[in-house]
């Protein structure tokens, strides 16, 4: 009985299979880059929190010596070669006699082309007049 050999792969089929495989590899690569990018993002959050802690101490000490709420201030710091912007606003809260503070730290994620901000609200005690 003659054995009919199965039809061999054509070049087209082969090319399609390679294309599918390379598509899959691209997804794997993307997964790797995404891991790196989100790790960098988590690093930036850590740095931003340390910066916020430092700024909060500074602002608190300034407010202790000032009878009025502090004026708005902003600036930029470079930490670990990355730029972080900070800005704070204060608002008098007449009912409580406290000063409301909103400290905002923002930075740009290059890989995601997006600006991220973290807001640190706090209450401060002004100097007694």
């Amino acid at each position, binding site marked *: 009985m003659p054995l009919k050999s199965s039809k061999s792969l054509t070049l087209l089929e082969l090319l399609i299979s390679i294309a599918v495989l390379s598509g899959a590899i691209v997804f794997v690569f993307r997964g790797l880059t995404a891991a*790196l990018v989100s790790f960098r993002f988590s690093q930036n959050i*850590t740095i931003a929190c*340390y910066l916020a802690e430092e700024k909060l*101490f500074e602002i608190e*000490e300034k407010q202790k*010596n000032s009878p009025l709420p502090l004026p708005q201030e902003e600036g930029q710091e470079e*930490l*670990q070669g990355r730029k972080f912007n900070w800005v704070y606003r204060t608002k008098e809260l007449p009912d409580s006699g406290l000063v409301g503070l909103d400290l905002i730290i923002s930075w740009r994620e290059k890989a995601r082309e997006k600006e991220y901000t973290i807001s640190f609200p706090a209450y401060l005690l002004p100097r007694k007049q």
Partner: protein
Amino acid sequence: MKRPRSFTLVEVLISVSIFSVIILALYSVFRTAVMSYTRIGSAFDLYQAARASFSRMELDLKNCFIFSGDDSRFAGTGDDLKFFSVIDLYGGGSANPGVCRIEYGMKGDILERTVYPGIEALKDDSEVPAQGLAYNVRALSFQYAYLTGSSDSPFEWQESWPKESGEQIKALPAAVKITLSLVEKDSKGKDAGAVEFSKVIALPSLVRAAGASTGEGSE
């Protein structure tokens, strides 16, 4: 029976070359995966070490107090720090808050924390094993905030505490700024630059005030 047709040399060569392309692609994917895994791993360890050391130091410093004895005050220089604190000593398997003296300093490239618990705190020659807080440390520095009372610049960072002048001897700094520079290792275990972390730990103002006004123990 018809003999099945065998592969020709050309077919084998073509299939081998296509296969090698696929293998190369797979290899590069795995290589990149392993490389980024090690990179993320070492950077993660670095951040974890910095966070762990900072949180330990924060816990110690937030509980520090001034003791009236001459040798037992808050004493800090640019690269080491000694103070009295109340911490959990974990005696006998349970949390056991107790007074102790804590010292931070560098030994080689290790950031060491030494705790002298209880009566050991008052002895100068007690032998207590130090514990490593962070390894592969390139630099460690402390700065101490001194309140000036002016509204423009309410505090100044100084390199040691207390300074020669009298009033600081019986007081705690308003805050301690710790700068920790850790060496990052690449996949071959070689140095790949250092990463600098910095944290400001504000000391509780109530304790500061009590210590400054009475100059005595302020637990």
